[in-house]
């Protein structure tokens, strides 16, 4: 069976700024990603990983090339349509956790559910079960400042997963964690994703993770220089 890829990128380039100061963060990227695939992106700092993730996650538009998601071109979508797409299909996990400091763990998870306009009861229920699934069922009322780094990142994962996204994107999610906690968080991410047949795109410097990943992209100077499958 030859299903079309979830993502299809062709000659994608992204230039920041203009004139002599312009930086070509992506420089001709061709990439297909199938639904349910688990992809790890590695590469030196400044090689364009984050820029690629932003384009995949409908946070940014390429300056050149085409990006098809689920069969339709998203490079030309309006800002509003991109926002809608993010709400319905994508979940993000960030290096700095990006939790809202004034909201409790469950409040943070609910903030990810807010654009879905669920009834209050359903929203709270989903938030609760997402927190339970990351092992934080007893920390729902805690503020981010009252949680450890690993716990905070697990709240962020719960926030991303509660929406049941098609694609989970994570940009160096362990970058701010010690290695043991980082390992736990990554196991959680990949484990949850695997169980649910979710597409996961993960940026990491962790060679160990990269070594065990089913598919690894290596980037350099805005290009994909290696695409290895296990």
């Amino acid at each position, binding site marked *: 069976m030859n299903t079309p890829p979830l993502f299809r990128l062709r000659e994608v380039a992204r230039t920041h700024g203009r004139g002599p100061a312009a930086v070509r963060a992506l420089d001709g990227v061709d990439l297909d990603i199938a639904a349910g695939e688990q992809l790890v992106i590695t590469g030196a700092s400044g090689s364009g990983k984050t820029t690629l993730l*932003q384009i995949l996650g409908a946070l940014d538009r390429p300056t050149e090339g085409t990006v098809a998601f689920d069969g339709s071109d998203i490079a030309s979508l309006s800002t509003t349509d991109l*926002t809608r797409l*993010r709400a319905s299909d*994508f979940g993000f996990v960030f290096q700095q956790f*990006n939790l*809202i400091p004034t*909201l409790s763990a469950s*409040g943070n998870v609910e903030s990810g559910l807010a654009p879905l306009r669920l009834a*209050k009861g359903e*929203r709270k229920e989903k938030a609760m079960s997402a927190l339970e699934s990351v092992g934080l069922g007893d920390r729902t009322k805690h503020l981010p400042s009252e949680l450890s780094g690993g716990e905070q990142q697990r709240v962020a994962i719960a926030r991303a997963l509660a929406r049941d996204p098609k694609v989970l994107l994570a940009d160096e999610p362990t970058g701010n964690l010690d290695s043991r906690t980082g390992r736990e968080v990554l196991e959680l991410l990949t484990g949850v994703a695997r169980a649910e047949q979710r597409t996961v795109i993960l940026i990491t410097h962790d060679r160990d993770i990269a070594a065990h990943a089913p598919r690894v992209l290596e980037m350099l100077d805005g290009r994909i220089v290696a695409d290895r499958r296990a």
Partner: protein
Amino acid sequence: MFYLSYLGAEVRRRLGRTVLTALGLAIGVALVVAVSALSQGLDDAQEEVLKPLTGLGTDMAVARPLRSTEDDEGFASGIGGFLQLSPEEIERLQDENQSAIVDPSELGEPGEDFESDIFVTTTQLSFPAAEVGNVQGLEGVQTAAGTLTLSLLNVTGTVPEQGFQGGAIGPGAAAGSDINFDPSTISGIDRQAPDLGVVTPAQVIRGDWFDEGAEGAAQAVVTQGYAGRKGVNIGSAIPVQDGTFEVVGIAEPPLGGSASDVYIDLSRLQELSDRVDRVNGIQVRAESADAVSGVAAAIEDEFEGATVTTAADLADQVSGSLLDAQRLADNLSLALAAVALVAAFLIAMLLTLTGVNKRTRELGTLSALGWSRLSIVRQVAGEAVLTGIVGGLVGAGLGALAAFGLDRADTQLTASVGGEQANTGPLGFGQGQIVSGSSEVSLGAPLSPDIILIAIGLAIAGGLLAGLVGGWRAARLRPVDALRHVG
């Protein structure tokens, strides 16, 4: 709605920023409230000082003054002052003052003690009472009442030997003789028009106003100063020439208004002073405040030699700390409040802006999570508006408290009506002496619902402004900032 719990969490948990923003707005709004209340209080204080002139219905006074020049010593200069007048005026005045020129031989045998009351016209010439009707008939006049104000000279002493210089005595010829002159002023008022007289029931601070019926003709109201000077009290009988009057009331004359020492029934005074059907002042009430100046002009046109003094003319003469405070309130304090308010608005906007900048990552994250631009703007603006409203309400409360404090402090302000000008000439309201000097009035700071409403309006405006600025800034955030922005 998740929006509301998030909003509540932001406002509660970022307490420092909320309190700072709210406090800035609160201080601005509080100043506006307090200064407005104070300003209202000053207006009230001025009104209270001028109330006897402006409030009780006497809008203007008509007199026919002697056209004297530089008569800056008032009545005390006596007939000597007449030298500066035209012969015609002197003759008219002397006619009226016949009774003041007394042949000493009529007083008794030389060496005998005597006492006599003599009526002397003040600087206001008399005219037929019919003029009151003429004024009454003018357009724009609601009511007019005549008054007669005279100087009453109580002369006591010993009848001089034959050959006493000049053969006559009068106030100007008293020097060196064994005769005492005790001058006071007396006004006859129309008891039928109590609110329009030179003394009104409202000015009576002890006792009563004249009896409306026949009894009133034998009653007198005296001013506080006269009562104190003469040891007169309610119930005292005071002789006025051939009549005796029972004191029924003590009056406190208004500052800037006219004051006679003694007030009695107009007809009785006319009889006693031999001036039947003559008055020398008309108190006029106009139909409306707008009509005052027109009526004043009409009277001066119609009535030869008349001078009209309006309440506004008198208000202009009031000075003192009351006016200073009022000027201060009008200029400085309001400017201060305006500056404080603008500063508060700016601070609120700035703090909101800083808040949004600090939350770039957070708001970018919400955008990455699929929050629409509208809901992010609504979030930020909602927080600012809520903070602004809290600040405004706190400010309104603080301002009300400050106003209340000012009210309780019971600050005394003085209002003065000054010297020479007021003591002489035709400026008097009525024909007695103008009450010069100063009066104290306590300063309040009343809070009107208007002020509170304005304060709340300002608070909401401040909140909206801050929200607008914050929302505008938030709308410019991009979701990529969720991953990029460091801080």
